C-alpha cells in the first residue's frame, strides 16, 4: 500500500493507520488515566495539556492505586468525572481544606488538587496559604491562565497589568484594579512549603519541564517532606481574545514575564547528595 496520499492537492504521508514498517509506539492518543479523550474545552486550551502531564506523573510514580484528586471549579472541572483516578469534587477555592481532610484521615493516599487561578488565588487564597503553612503533605496544582475562563474571561488576582479581560476592558490598570498576585512566589516563602515550581505548557520543551516539576512535587509528598505546589501557565485564547496559534507567544510575552518559570524551592532536591558521590 502506498505510503503517501493527496490532500488539498498536496502529497502527504498517510496518517490513518499504524505504520507497516517495524516501529515502536512512543506516545499514545489519550493518556491511560483519561477515560474519554473528547472534551468540550476550547480549541487551543492549555488545560488538557497540563492535565495530561499531571496524570502521566501520577502513573509514572506508580501511585494510581492510592491517588485521590481533589478538583476545584473551573473549565478543568470537565475532567473531574473523566479520570481513571479517584476524584473528590470540591467547591470553588475550597480544594486545599478538603485535600487536608482526606490526607489527614488517610495518610497513605497521594492527594493532589487541580484548581484554576480564579479558584485558588481569588476565592481560595486563604485555603492554599494555610495548607502550605501547615506543611500538609498534599500537592496543589494551579492551572494559571490569568482569567476566569469558565464564566467567560474575567479578571483574576493573577491577571497581568495591561491584560484585557471582560472586567478590565482597557487592560488591567494598577490604580483601578491593583496588581497581580504571584502565588508561587508567595507560597515559596512559607516554611511549610517544601517544593514550589512554576511551569507552562505553551511549547513542548515547557511541557517536558512541567512534567518534571509535577514528578518532583509528588515525590516530595510521597517522601512526607511537606507541602508541594506546581503552578502551570496555560493558554486561554478565548479569554485572551487571541487566535489559537498566537496564544503560546501571548503566554510567553505577557504571563511568563510576570509569573516567571522555574523551581523556586526544592527541599528534597537540596537534601539529595550531589550526582556522582
Amino acid at each position, binding site marked *: 500500500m502506498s505510503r503517501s496520499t493527496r490532500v488539498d492537492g498536496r502529497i502527504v504521508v498517510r496518517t490513518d493507520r499504524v505504520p507497516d514498517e517495524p516501529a515502536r509506539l512512543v506516545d499514545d492518543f489519550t493518556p491511560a488515566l483519561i477515560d474519554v479523550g473528547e472534551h468540550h474545552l476550547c480549541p487551543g486550551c492549555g488545560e488538557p495539556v497540563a492535565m495530561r502531564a499531571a496524570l502521566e506523573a501520577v502513573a509514572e510514580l506508580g501511585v494510581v492505586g492510592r491517588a485521590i484528586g481533589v478538583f476545584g471549579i473551573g473549565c478543568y472541572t470537565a475532567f473531574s*468525572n473523566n479520570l481513571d483516578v479517584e476524584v473528590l469534587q470540591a467547591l470553588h477555592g475550597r480544594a486545599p481544606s478538603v485535600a487536608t*481532610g482526606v490526607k489527614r484521615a*488517610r495518610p497513605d493516599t497521594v492527594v493532589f488538587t487541580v484548581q484554576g487561578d480564579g479558584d485558588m488565588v481569588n476565592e481560595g487564597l486563604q485555603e492554599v496559604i494555610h495548607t502550605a503553612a501547615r506543611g500538609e503533605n498534599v500537592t496543589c496544582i494551579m492551572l494559571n491562565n490569568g482569567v476566569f475562563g469558565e464564566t467567560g474571561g474575567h479578571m483574576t488576582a493573577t491577571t497581568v497589568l495591561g491584560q484585557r479581560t471582560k472586567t478590565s476592558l482597557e487592560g488591567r490598570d494598577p490604580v483601578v484594579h491593583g496588581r497581580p498576585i504571584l502565588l508561587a512566589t508567595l507560597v515559596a516563602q512559607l516554611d511549610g512549603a517544601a517544593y514550589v515550581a512554576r511551569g507552562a505548557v505553551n511549547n513542548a520543551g515547557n511541557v517536558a519541564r512541567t512534567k518534571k516539576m509535577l514528578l518532583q512535587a509528588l515525590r516530595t509528598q510521597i517522601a512526607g517532606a511537606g507541602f508541594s505546589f506546581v503552578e502551570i501557565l496555560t493558554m486561554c485564547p478565548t479569554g485572551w481574545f487571541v487566535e489559537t496559534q498566537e496564544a503560546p507567544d501571548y503566554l510567553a510575552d505577557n504571563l511568563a514575564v510576570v509569573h516567571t518559570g522555574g523551581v523556586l524551592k526544592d527541599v528534597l532536591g537540596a537534601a539529595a547528595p550531589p550526582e556522582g558521590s
Partner: protein
Amino acid sequence: MEGSEAIADAMIAAGCRFFAGYPMTPFTEVLEHMARKLPAVGGVCMNAESEIEAVGMAWGAAATGTPAATGSTGQGLSLMQESLAEITLARLPLVVLNMARAQGDYYQATRGGGHGDYRHLVLAPGDVAEAVELVQLAFDLTVRWRNPVLVMGDYYLAHTARSVSVEPLDFGPRPDTDWALDGSTGGTGRAKLVSFLGSAKQRDHVGYDLSDHYAACAAASAAMVASVQPLAECLDTDDAEVVVVAFGTPATYAKAAVRQLRAQGTRVGLVRPVTLFPFPTDAVAGAAEGARAVAVYENNQGQMVDDVRLAVLGRAPVHFIGGLSLDGSGFGIAPDLDVAVLRGRIEEVLAR
C-alpha cells in the same frame, strides 16, 4: 462532667475519628475536648484557620468513609452553609454541631440555611443526658442516609455539669461505605467519584448531567424524610386545655412550669420536639386536638411557631409566648428563663 465534654465523649463513643473546628463561644470547649481526646483514640482533630476550612476538612475526611464531624455556633454555621448544602448533594455523612446562642438558629437549621433544595435531619437535646444519646443517634442516621445531621445544642448544654456515663449505644449494623475513597479503585477502569455534580464517571457522553443527579438526590431526601421517625417528648397532653411547645434547654424550664401548674390542678401539657426536622407534626397535632390553645415558647422572635401552626392547622389558636431574651453578652443566661416567668405566660394564655 460539663456538657461539652459529654458531647465530645459521645462523639468518640459513636466512632467519630475526625473533627475540625474553629473556636467560637459557646462551641469552643467541644473543640478543646476533641483536641485532647481524639488523638488518644487514633483520630484527628484540626483547629482550622476558619469555619469554612473546618467544614472543608471534615468534608475531605468524610469522603474517605471516616466518621467525621464539625461544628460552631450560629455565625460559624452561616459561614459553612455553601459547603453544607453541597456536602448534602455529594451524599456524604457528616455530623454538625450548632452550640447555639439563644434559639434564633431554628430557621437556619430546619429551613436549610444554604442555597438550593436540600434537607438536613436536626436533633435538639433537652439536657446533657439526652445530648449524649442524640449525638450517637446522629452518627448512625448520617451514615444510614448519607446526609448531614445537625445537632442543635446551646450555651446551657455546653456549660451545665451533670453526672452522666457515656455508654456506646447500638443502633444495629451500619451500612457499608463502599462509596468511600481510598485511592484503590484508581487505574481499574472503575475509579470512584464523590461529587455534588454527579456520581458517575462519563463513558459515552461528555460532562455531568445535573438534572439526573439533582433528581436522584431529591428522591433520596424524600425517602429519608418519609422513613426517619420524628421524635418528641409529650407530657400530660391527653387532657390538656393548653399545650406548651418548647425545644432545647428552655423546654426544661417550660416543663417545670407545666408540672407546677398540673400540681395545682390546671390542665396543661407540653410537647417538646426532639427532632426539629422532621418536625413531630403528628405529636403536636394530636396534643392540640381538644385543647383550647397552644402556647409556643422559644428564645427568638418566633421561628418554630411556624411549624407548630402548620401542625395544629387551625385545631386551636396558637399563641407565641416566647421572645428575644438575652443578657448583655448575647449568649449568656436568658433573663426570662425562669419557671415563674413561664408560669405567668402560660396562665395568661389560660385566662384568655
